[in-house]
């Protein structure tokens, strides 16, 4: 049984200006110890998907349909008290901006000890020990001193490590990481990625890595799901998808990576911009930017399995590049 199975998840925001369909009909699964890369640009719905799984979608949004099966239990419709027992305990989340994630007026040890004590009846000293050990695990030197410090006394990379440590305190089955390295230097990014990969492999934790950066996903993930305008447009194993992308959006994304472009030739771009999620045109959401669009794209394509384990939501996929 996979750690996480998402089936047909739809999360909408009911604002005064209209309904924003942030996540529409999203399905994927993550196996034990596997890393799923959820890729998309801002507004694609990847962050809201993450929040939907952990149950932190706030008004005016809510999950309107679908199931989220965590080790067989459906999280959709689960009571708040049960969800709280899972959060920080069996399912943990790491946020994007480490500066704003930690409470600036509370010490680091307070913020870690409270997480331990929220889910286990242990005394303060035991909780503090656990916090100390976890900090050591994520590579923070002199953890005893660090525990007594305040968040603003840490650098960005350190702060993110603390956030990761907090996520690991109860050895969760699933960690949702929402662009955790976006706000950090490239060198620190590399370090953190390596650490996380090692930890996941050692503890069997499943990982959902939400990002807009393909290069990050390439080195880290086992599977990849590409999101656009709230829907998954391509899914498959990371090697296959990145090597031979089917969907024109994925194709364009990979093609526009600078290292893939030839010197002296203008950089390839995807023309146009993401449509507003409140007034999506009927049919394929990408058609206004796609060179392959035609009348057939006026109806929303289904996420079809075009090759074993490879899904794409397109009627004109770049399937011709696949050997027969």
């Amino acid at each position: 049984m996979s750690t996480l199975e998402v089936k047909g998840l739809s999360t909408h925001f009911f604002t005064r200006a209209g309904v924003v369909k942030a996540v529409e009909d999203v399905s994927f699964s993550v196996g034990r110890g596997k890393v799923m890369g959820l890729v998309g640009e801002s507004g694609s719905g990847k962050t809201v998907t993450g929040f939907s799984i952990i149950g932190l979608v706030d008004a005016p949004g809510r999950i309107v349909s679908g199931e989220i099966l965590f080790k067989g239990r459906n999280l959709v419709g689960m009571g708040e008290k049960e969800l709280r027992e899972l959060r920080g305990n069996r399912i943990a989340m790491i946020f994007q901006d480490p500066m704003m994630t930690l409470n600036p007026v509370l010490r680091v040890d307070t913020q870690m000890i409270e997480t331990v004590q929220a889910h286990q009846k242990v005394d303060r000293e035991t909780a503090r020990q656990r916090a100390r050990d976890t900090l050591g695990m994520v590579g923070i030197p002199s953890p005893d001193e660090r525990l007594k410090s305040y968040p603003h006394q840490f650098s960005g990379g350190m702060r993110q490590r603390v956030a990761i440590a907090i996520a690991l305190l109860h050895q969760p089955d699933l960690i949702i990481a929402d662009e955790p390295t976006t706000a950090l230097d490239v060198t620190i990014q590399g370090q953190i990625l390596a650490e996380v990969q090692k930890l996941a492999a050692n503890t069997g934790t499943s990982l959902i890595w939400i990002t807009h950066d393909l290069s990050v996903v390439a080195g880290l993930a086992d599977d990849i799901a590409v999101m656009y305008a709230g829907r998954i447009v391509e899914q498959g194993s990371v090697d296959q998808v990145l090597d031979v992308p089917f969907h024109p959006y994925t194709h364009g994304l990979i093609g526009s990576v600078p290292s893939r472009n030839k010197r002296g030739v203008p950089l390839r771009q995807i023309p146009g911009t993401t449509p507003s999620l409140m007034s999506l045109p009927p049919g394929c959401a990408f058609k206004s930017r796609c060179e392959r669009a035609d009348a057939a794209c006026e109806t929303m394509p289904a996420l079809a399995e075009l090759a074993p384990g490879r899904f794409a939501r397109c009627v004109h996929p770049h399937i011709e590049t696949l050997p027969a």
Partner: protein
Amino acid sequence: MALYLLRRLTQSGFVLVAMSLLVFLGVYAIGDPIEILISPDADQIEKERAIRALGLDLPLWQQYLVFVGKALQGDLGRSFVFNEPAIQLILQRMPATLELAFGSMLLSILIGLPLGLYAGLRPNGALSKGIMAGSILGFSLPTFWVGLMLIMVFAVQLGWLPSTGRGDTALLFGIPWSFLTRDGLSHILLPAINLSLFKISLVIRLTRAGVRETMLMDYVKFARAKGLSPFRVTFVHVFKNIMIPVVTVVGLELGGTIAFSVVTESVFAWPGMGKLIIDSINVLDRPVIVAYLMMIVLMFIIINLAVDILYTVLDPRVRLEAKA
């Protein structure tokens, strides 16, 4: 920290000097100084004697120096009405005013903070809207009128509480305080409520705004993602963040409250500094006016300094900057 204190003290020194100049100019240069310092009933010979004795025939800058010299020794003139040193009159009445001011400050926090917290956590509820509407009333209602109404309802109609004056006092550190006796408490209640009304509204609005702003912060969402109970999220994470601006404002308002007590003291015939100044203005007892002004300025400076120091204690981010 020491350097910071030193800097603030020198700043305060400058302000004190500036204010002393203003007061001096106001009393000695504008208007007839003879009228100001000498009782209007004196005849010509007494006037001339007084002029020489008070050094009024000296040039202005010399008079200022004399003024400062005397002030530093604690001599700010003698009251016409009471024929006592003005400063003594003021110091005698200070405990009464301070009691009132601190009492109202306490009430504003005890009542305003919980109400504001509730209004911030459930902004759309009927009770919240009621609280906010009430807060508008709170800072709209002219204090003196509310005082009159309080007397009318509680003293005249219901007869529960005394209408005017200060009750029995008990000594603490050699100073008579009325809150230490039951009778004293019954006398202080109405004026304290009256004086606190404006500040209660202020605290409610501040707290509510702070709570609404803080709830949107990432660290609150992260705290929830860790599975912490809503109680802890509200009363530890949110509360500690909003306390800082609230305490600062209330502290700074203390000076204004002491000044504003002139109104409440007049309505309730409370024998504090405020009533003294009103009476003095009405009979033109100008030495007392001067002494009062200087005392108020001094108090303001001390309060501002204390609040600054308190701020560095409460907010760890500022504390370390002050050290640097």
